[in-house]
């Protein structure tokens, strides 16, 4: 007899809008923080010890925030909003000053992807003004490195993931498009390395595990599609999982590579074993679409958390499979 599914250990209310993006920052000496970007244009910074908001940043003139992230090195927060701006915030010593902003011109929902190449510089990929276009700039110099435009008609770019594999000198970029294709770009060559049709519908989200060179993508249908990157940088479909209800908004792999979480449109968070994609749990707490899911980066594995943000304006926090 299997155990009944767990309940959230606590929930955070008061974001005042759908929660499009979640990001943990729990390493270091400071109190563990959770950043959330809401549909009402607010970035909430939650203190996970007191379970209250530390601060609320309203910086995108009321437009929906679709992505939040912090840089590892400094107290820098990056947020992306539907007002076509990417903003950099300085959070050091209790400040919250706008450092810089980048105009993207993208009207879509594609979340940015950031790759820190050195302690001071990093690469940021985002969807550009034209629907298929992906731009990559270097931060903090804001120099545009390249623009990636597929020749074939694949539709709007839906989701991107920038990573640095061990085998290649330059970074690679995975991008999912409206037509259901996944493209692997070589950023330095600005060329397509591989293309695969992963879904019949738009690719809504993807996540990639650079250590195992495996990734998974979700769509508006019932199937998650899993794929692998071989030695020659070819994408190969590996099958996937079928869900009970269609639609996935976000996928996230835990840092130790054991768990995969999916944020479902059916208001459920599903947890899988990442190795074999074995279903492990179906978490039912939210009353509306789950929009985002994230695993914390606690150094002590026993404290690790998973957060899920939903359209019902609540964030639920879960402690799963932390024993080992």
């Amino acid at each position, binding site marked *: 007899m299997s155990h009944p*599914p767990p309940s959230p250990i606590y929930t955070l209310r008061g974001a005042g809008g759908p929660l499009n993006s979640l990001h943990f920052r729990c390493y270091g000496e400071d109190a563990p923080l959770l950043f959330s970007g809401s549909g009402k244009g607010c970035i909430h910074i939650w203190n996970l010890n007191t379970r209250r908001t530390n601060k609320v940043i309203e910086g995108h003139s009321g437009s929906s925030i679709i992505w939040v992230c912090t840089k590892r090195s400094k107290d820098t927060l990056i947020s992306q909003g539907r007002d076509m701006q990417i903003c950099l915030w300085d959070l050091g010593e209790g400040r919250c000053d706008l450092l810089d902003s980048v105009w993207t011109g993208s009207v879509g929902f594609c979340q940015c992807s950031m790759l820190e190449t050195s302690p001071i510089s990093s690469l940021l990929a985002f969807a550009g003004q034209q629907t298929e276009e992906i731009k990559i700039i270097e931060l903090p110099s804001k120099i545009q490195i390249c623009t990636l435009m597929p020749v074939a008609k694949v539709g709007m770019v839906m989701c991107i993931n920038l990573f640095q594999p061990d085998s290649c000198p330059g970074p690679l970029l995975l991008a999912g498009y409206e037509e259901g294709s996944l493209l692997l770009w070589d950023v330095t060559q600005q060329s397509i390395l591989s293309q695969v049709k992963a879904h019949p519908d738009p690719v809504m989200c993807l996540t990639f595990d650079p250590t195992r060179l495996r990734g998974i993508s979700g769509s508006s249908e019932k199937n998650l599609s899993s794929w692998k990157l071989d030695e020659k940088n070819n994408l190969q479909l590996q099958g996937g999982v079928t869900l009970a209800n269609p639609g996935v908004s976000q996928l996230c792999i835990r840092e130790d590579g054991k768990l995969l979480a999916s944020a479902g449109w059916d208001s459920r968070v599903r947890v899988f074993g990442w*190795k074999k994609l074995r279903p*492990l749990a179906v978490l039912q707490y939210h009353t509306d679409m789950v929009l985002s899911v994230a695993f914390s980066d606690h150094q002590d594995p026993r404290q690790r958390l998973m957060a899920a943000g939903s359209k019902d304006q609540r964030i639920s926090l879960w402690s799963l499979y932390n024993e080992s």
Partner: protein
Amino acid sequence: LQRNTSVSDSDSVRLEVSACLRCLSSSDSSRNITVLQTLLSYLDEASHGAAQRAQFSRSHYSRTLRVLITTIEADWVHRLTARQREELWDALFLRGPPEQALLVLLEAIGELSPSTSLDHVVTITEKFLQDGRLTNLLWSYCVGSAQSDSPQLRETLLGRLSALPDIMANKLHHNISPLFLPQQYYPLLASAMLTALQRTCQALRGQHQPDNINCSLAFVSQTLGKLCLQGHGGLVLAAMAPRLSACTRSDMVWQRVCWKLFESIPQRSMECVLTALVLAVSGIVGNLVLRNKKAEFVITHKLLLLQYKYETGVLRTVLGYLAADRDRRPLLIQVLRCICQAWANPSAVKHTPMEQQLYVSKALLLSVSLLKDQELQDLRSELLQCLLGGMQSHLDSSVLRIRCVGMVVGECLSSRMDNADTKLKFEYEQDEETRELLSLMTPSGWCEPESESLQETKELAPNTCSVASQRRQTTPPLAPTDPDSDLDSDDELTPYDMTEDQEVSQTSPPRYLRDCLESLMSSEDAMRVELSLKAADPLVRRNAFAAREISVQMSKVLLHMEDKYNIQGFLILRHAAMVALAVTDCIPVTQYLTTEFYSLNYSLRQRLDMLEVLVAAAQELSLPTTDKKNSSIISALDVAELPPFQGHDPVHWRQVVEKRIQSKTRRISKGASQPATAKATPNRYAPVAGYFFFPLLKNYDKPEVTFDLLGSDHLVLGRLIHSLGLFMHLAVNAPVAAQMGSALLDFVWTVRYHTDQMVRRGVLFAVCSVFLSMPSQNLLLDLGDMLFETRTWLTDVAEGDPDADCRSLAVQSLVLLDKSLKKQLKDPQSPSLES
């Protein structure tokens, strides 16, 4: 002179033997040892001439032995030493002509009462068998050297030979030696026969025998025939057949001997020998079927078309035997024609038992699989004719199993006949039976030479092993490439319970009955229709008042509803909703349904639905309900348990009947275990039973354009009668039961010999339920003469119906009827006698 000497020889022998025997009979014992030696010397070649010896064996041997048996109790016999007894007394039995010795021994065993003398005779008989005297016996008949041969003697001897274990067992009871048990005796006899046959072969080749002698196998054949006729064929042929088939394979002489053996088997035992032989192995009879009419009849007709008790293996053997030889192939084709006719015959489909039909189907498939392509081409048109006719009659049947068999056979035949794409393809459920039928088309089983097949398997075995080992070798290299075989897999993470993970629906179910009805009637939204259908049953039950207002309208809507959106469990849901309506607002809904049953423009499915709903409603009404909450739960459970199509399943009614019989049977131990908490509740069905029942009895004989109950729509008729039977059965203890019973018996009387067994089953079920539910005092009073006609009819069915279910139902009805009548006649308190 010659004659004179022979006469004097015979006289001298006679005189000497007489003197000896007189001496033995007298009590004077001093000379008896020498006398015995004298007698024994007649059996030795050394001491007497051939003529004298022959004279003794022919005329005096039996007499001598009989005298010896009569003196067995004499003092001088007891005074003999063990050695003397063995060398003189016993030897006389064991060296003389074996047939006479055996007869005398068995006679003695029959006459003697249990004593040491009996033991002595039994020991000699045992020795007789152990010394291989049986072989000598058979061989002596083969070469014609048996001294005394008359038909009577021969018949007696055959009887004794074949019944020796029985004779022994009758006399000795438990103290019997294992040698006399059938398991040892018959193989011994079989090996004796084999030896006799072998000697015959040697004689034919002229080995060991200086001069050619004539051999006759008649006696061995007769023995074999007798043995098989008495039912010992299995044991005997199990010992003989392998050896015979091994010998006949390469040896011409053996073949001839063998065929001769089977040819000279008497006519009346031919069938038994053949069937026993077919069960063992068939390669040794040669072309017997071509020469012997009886054998031909048994093999080509009786085994295939008249009997159906044998396993599939026997069919394989028989047909394989026919197919194995060029001369016999015309017979195979002839057989195939007969089988085809039998299979396609519509009357056979209706009137023969299911088991036989299955048997014939197997035979058909096997023989078709044995045909060569050329023969198939010649037979094509006939096979096609058979296929078409047979398919039609099989698919017409209302028994699921017959339809299934028809479909499988049709598929196999069409795929065998046509290489093109014009194959038949049916949808049926795979079960053991269909799989077996399908497997018959692969020509794997029969191969005449058994040892060859053994060799083949031996040769095959290493091959398969090597294949397996290759496979084993190839698998390990694959393993490392498997990415999932990492040591730290997901397995350490135990999954949580995920049963809650169901599909979510977008729209909410209707909350009011009228909304539900509205969306069922006019909604185009698949989701809403599905939710409304799901909600209908609980809504109706919860809002009885609202339901009464719209019950008929809603029944109409549900009845005409089609599964437009492919809703999962549509039939069950609709059925549940209609049942709920019929239960909640019983009289109007039943009136509506029963009138609609006979009206125009309904499909058979809809008419069956009406019956199913009525039956389920009646069942639910008749259940006792303690409180309202429970009732809905019970009914929901009931509905869930009922599969949507129960019509094909006779088990269901049988269970009901059996439950009733169980409950009617009084058991003393059960008396106390009656639950004390059972509360009396009003039977909701009793007052309305008539509304369910009587309207359905009207109009059944008025054929409409679209509905002819007594004609082609016998499927509905069967279900109708079965439903009526159920209404009757549920109306037990209701006041109206008596009228219902007599009306029902009247109704089914016209269709009691219907050709469709589903209808007959229904009729018998209805009769059963009449006898169960009708008060016994009314049985005699209301039914009267009809009861006795019914009885005769039931006995007739119980004996002669081809359908096993019908027979058992008839027997059950008879038992019920008798019980009911007996109760009525014995019980003086019954109201009918008072009045």
